[in-house]
């Protein structure tokens, strides 16, 4: 039996939904100065992509997409560990996580 969501909801709705989540992540990255919140917005974008991969995988009945989501989650976990370590190190040196103060690499 095909799941009810697959029968009743067009795949386009998932595309719109995932694009909205992704755009919210983009706006978060562009507007916020707090490095941790920027990092969380990046996680939001990753999750939008995960949702779209799972939706396509279910609608196409193809397990490969879900395996990819599994790998994305593994990579995201490693990324968060390293990224938060970098943020803690920045805080140790600058006493702030405001990215406006980290302009030494500009130009």
């Amino acid at each position, binding site marked *: 039996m095909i*799941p009810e*969501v*697959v029968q*009743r*909801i067009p795949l*386009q*709705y998932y*595309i*719109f*939904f995932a*694009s*909205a*989540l*992704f*755009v919210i*992540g*983009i*706006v*978060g990255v*562009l*507007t*916020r100065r*707090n490095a*941790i*919140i920027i*990092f*969380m*917005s990046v*996680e*939001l974008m990753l*999750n939008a992509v*995960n*949702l779209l991969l*799972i*939706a396509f995988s*279910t609608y*196409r*009945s*193809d*397990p*490969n997409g*879900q*395996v990819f989501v*599994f*790998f994305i*989650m593994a*990579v*995201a*976990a490693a990324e*968060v*560990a*390293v990224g*938060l*370590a970098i943020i*803690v*190190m920045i*805080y*140790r040196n600058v006493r702030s*996580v405001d990215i*406006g103060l980290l302009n030494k690499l500009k130009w």
Partner: protein
Amino acid sequence: MQNQILYVWYLLTAVTILAALLVVLAKNPIHSVLSLVVTFFCLSAHYVLLNAQFLAVVNIIVYAGAIMVLFLFVIMFLNLREYTEETKSNFAKLGAAVVGGVTLVAIIAALKKVQYPMPMRYDVRTGFVETLGEVLFRDYLLPFELVTVLFFVAMVGAVMLGKREKGERHF
């Protein structure tokens, strides 16, 4: 009764988008983290609706469990609760909103009319643990093993970065 699943779907989607907006708009970082947890739980519910039980559970364990605890821990560790003044100008915020809106409209306009045909044979067990395990350990065995190397490197890197160096300012 027939439309119940639609109501559930729209409600979940609305809650997810609202929580995601709150992540970006909240002034207090703790509120951002908590609404991100809500977002991840709603996304897990979406995965259950899509019949992807394995990934729904993994999403809760890895994202809502491990990653968000790490974020919460760092925010409390750095004591960022008294929020500092955001220094971004209104012009930059307006520009960001325009960029985001244009991106959204472009994606939707590009993908609105595309047709996605259903497959000939539909397998309900696509997202079940058995199917995914079979694919993972047959076709993706090498990437799976490489993930362990990635985790090892990430662990070493995190410890290296977190280590206190000599002559550095103390907390």
